[in-house]
């Protein structure tokens, strides 16, 4: 398949999806409050462009802050877990337990502590994005080939050095893999929080639209989320390629 087709593929698929969608909505005469047609959604996007745009920026900001916190915290905890069996054994189960709790149940508590607005949204994004990073980093560390560690151990390197020089670089493919998961989760987290407790943000806007039964606007919000998600993901994928190009050698030929 030629390079050009591959370049075009995402657009073609998206276009195809929208066409099928539009087609089925018309064919089966699906009512707008069940599934609005892309044209309805497009109309809503045009009409409500300003709120969509400003709210998107707000959500983007909270997501980014929460995500950055999750990256720092997740990487640190993942490394700590890979580092020490005691930390692993003690902390991991708690973390898993915590992660099995829907974050939407935690948001009200955050609101009581921090009021509504940006802080709980940031924290929710953080809490939800944090876990995949920890798990993947810990998995990456656990699967390092002992031969690679030996190179440093033979030099009398401290555990810290081995972590820095082998552990971290070697688990980067796992880490970046998790970032791609975490960024979309962070997004979901801040949106969820905004639906419960915020005066702005896409989540807030969607709930407001929902309580108006402005279904096309709700879907416009979903589309905005999808677009933002793709952009953020692409940023992560780009970063991944820059940082772990060495691991993606087979893709280069």
């Amino acid at each position, binding site marked *: 398949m030629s390079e050009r087709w591959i370049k075009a593929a995402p657009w073609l698929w998206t276009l195809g999806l929208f066409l099928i969608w539009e087609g089925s909505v018309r064919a089966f005469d699906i009512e707008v409050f069940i599934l609005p047609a892309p044209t309805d959604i497009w109309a809503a996007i045009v009409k409500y462009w300003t709120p969509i745009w400003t709210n998107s920026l707000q959500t983007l900001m909270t997501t980014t802050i929460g995500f950055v916190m999750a990256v720092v915290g997740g990487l640190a905890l993942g490394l700590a877990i890979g580092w020490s069996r005691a930390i692993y054994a003690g902390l991991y189960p708690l973390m898993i337990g915590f992660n099995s709790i829907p974050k939407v149940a935690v948001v009200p508590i955050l609101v009581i502590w921090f009021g509504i607005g940006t802080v709980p949204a940031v924290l929710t994004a953080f809490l939800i994005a944090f876990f995949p990073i920890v798990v993947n980093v810990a998995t990456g560390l656990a699967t390092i080939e002992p*031969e*690679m560690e*030996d*190179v*440093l*151990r*033979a*030099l*009398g*390197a401290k555990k810290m*050095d081995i972590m820095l*020089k*082998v552990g971290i*670089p*070697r688990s*980067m493919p796992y880490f970046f893999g998790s970032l791609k998961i975490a960024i979309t989760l962070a997004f979901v987290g801040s949106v969820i929080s905004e639906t419960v407790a915020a005066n702005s943000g896409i989540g807030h806007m969607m709930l407001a639209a929902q309580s108006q039964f402005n279904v096309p606007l709700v879907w416009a919000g979903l589309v905005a989320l999808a677009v933002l998600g793709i952009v953020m993901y692409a940023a992560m994928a780009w970063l991944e390629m820059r940082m*772990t190009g*060495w*691991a993606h*050698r087979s893709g280069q030929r």
Partner: protein
Amino acid sequence: MTGFVDLRDVQLAYSGHGTETLALDGLTMAVNRGEFAAVVGPSGCGKSTLMKLATGLIRPQAGTVEVAAREVDGPVSIAGMAFQNPSMLPWRTTLQNVMLPLEIVQPHRKRLGRERAAYTQLAEELLSVVGLAGFGAKYPWQLSGGMQQRANLCRALIHDPELLMLDEPFGALDAFTREELWQVMRDLHAEKGFTTILVTHDLREAVFLADRVFVMSARPGRIIVEHEISFPRPRPIDLTYEAGFNDIVHELRGHIAEARAAA
């Protein structure tokens, strides 16, 4: 007599998945400070295992391992090791791989920040000594097998270790490159006086470079013959064509043949 590297009655068995492989049993050997020792023996007899023991990468089940008069209870930091399998870190360029020990071992580690340029030059010189000038910026997987092995050798040498452990460092090289590197090793050893343990399958290599050659038995390995090589130093490469030299090579050959037959 205790040597600089001193293994006494060492036993080592690998365990895993229920089975046990006894790699070394009752191995005793001592290498003096500044000495160049070579270890030869049949494939799979435990030579690499011996190297890992001496650097403290693994611990014996029985017996003692001492380096520099201290019992080895973990990796020793005075050693430089060239593994049999080059195991370069794929995310580092060749130059960065070669400079890795400088980031770990004192006093280079302290100095590296300030004197990076000088150290980089040192590493590049070392690379060009082994014939890899200009390949520093390449990644290890962009090198040929023999080139990787040569980079591996540089990595073992860069930090001026007191103890140099070389596990078949010249196996993938053509005869000429190999002989060139023999001479490099010979001169370096004369200049810096590090203690060296070299594992090799090439008996000529062992006899040319070493002060003493240790012959190991088939697995479970132990030292069955210890052969002093008394050619005066510096040894010219032409030595390898002399009759006396070849006699020793033949003698060692005989020992190994016995070791294999006994297994």
